């Protein structure tokens, strides 16, 4: 995995239309983005579409990356996530509901190696960890799976209204925790 510095360099070269740098950028980041996108869409065909769209957007908009606001990879992931969630909410082509969710019990997200834990992530996880366990689960499920409130309510077996209130309270607590 390339370092943030290398990825920033590649991104800078991409703003100048450097196709070679773009290929290297893709090679350095695609597995991470694909992991994120696939977890949301749970279908390889849809995930592939989103990957294509996301990287084309990155190719066009590399100049808009602002290192003062985020890391390059976080910026790229944000683009891919937006597109993936849009795709997940929109009318899905073909197989839709009939295609089973891809499930493999053996694979989960590894915990992050300690050296990869950034300060921001530590702080965020600390704040999430202060929530009640149910709400921790709800929040992380929401982020990684990008489920709608209705889907979440179904998964967590609670009324949608209650879930909405709980979700917003959690977000507020996290906001306050991160501000402090």
């Amino acid at each position, binding site marked *: 995995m390339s370092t943030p510095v290398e990825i920033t360099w590649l991104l800078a070269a991409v703003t100048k239309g450097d196709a070679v740098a773009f290929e290297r950028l*893709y090679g350095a980041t695609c597995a*991470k983005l*694909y992991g994120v996108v696939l977890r949301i869409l749970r279908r390889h065909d849809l995930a*592939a579409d989103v990957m294509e769209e996301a990287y*084309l957007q990155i190719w066009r908009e590399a100049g808009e990356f602002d290192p003062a606001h985020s890391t390059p990879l976080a910026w790229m992931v944000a683009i891919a996530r937006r597109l993936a*969630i849009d795709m997940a909410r929109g009318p899905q082509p073909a197989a839709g509901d009939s295609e089973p969710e891809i499930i493999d019990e053996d694979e989960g997200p590894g915990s992050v190696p300690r050296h*990869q834990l950034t300060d921001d992530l530590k702080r965020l996880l600390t704040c999430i960890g202060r929530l009640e366990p149910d709400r921790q689960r709800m929040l992380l499920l929401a982020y990684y799976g990008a489920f709608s409130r209705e889907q979440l309510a179904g998964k967590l077996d609670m009324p949608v209204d209650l879930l909405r209130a709980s979700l917003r309270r959690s977000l507020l607590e996290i906001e306050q925790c991160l501000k402090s």
Partner: protein
Amino acid sequence: MSELDYTDALAAEYVLGTLDLEERTQARTLLDADQAFAANVELWERRFGELYLMVEPVEPEAKIWARIKAKMLEVQEKSRLPEAEIPPPASAAATTAEPPSLDAIEAAISQAATTLTSEASSAAGTEATPTPTSEAMQTPAAEAAPAPTSEASPTPASEAIPPPAPEATSAPISEVAPTLDPTPAPTSAAEPISAVEPTPGTPVVPPPAAAAVQAPSEARVPAVEPAAVLVAHRQMRRWRAIALLMTLVVAAVAVLLAAWRFAPDRVPPMLQPVELMRQMGVALPTASPPRRPAPPGSQFDE
């Protein structure tokens, strides 16, 4: 206080991904129209931004890159025309494979979160202050960016110019000139060239690795584009070389001066002031010896 206001909640949930289609469309409209909302979304994206680190990477199929590559040149040619519609998925061949299960994810995540919490809260006091790891790289590069460049040209320049100046003016002209003449002069001509020569050789296209290796501290300046950085590097190296050279010249002059003053007998004959002046073609006042025997009645002592 106990409630997020509506737009704040909308921004947060937009980032989190829990909005339904209708709300999401609304949020996207707001994103384009309302800068405050866009800033809010960006803030939440930053807050949750690093959670992706906990996602297990999954290697995509190679054909995805082929598709991107084909399209991307198109994009380049059209140069920022509205983005083309994506064609329907070429093949639904990849049906079932091995992406992670959500239950496994939940389990692992909550586990990670809780273990981290305990770790983090135990380290909460110290955590905030120094973290001398690779994470430091992720701190905003913007502040770091100006430093090398602003430091680059002024310092060597101020090093290069002033030191020779006082020495040169205070020293007699005949003393400065000789040192430039015999030995240091050739190097002063040769060295800048050899210092500059390697720079054109450095590759212009793949800067990341090279730059990261040759200057780890300066490589943390990702904000600037590579070409500009390369130019700055080159200029900085040239200035450094010149500054170093001038320092050497000054040091040589100083040593020679000191030798003349404090240990004139140990200066090799070649470097004796008189000898040097002769080499320079300065007409020595050979008339002085005859002047030596001053008339006995003279009122001036030597």
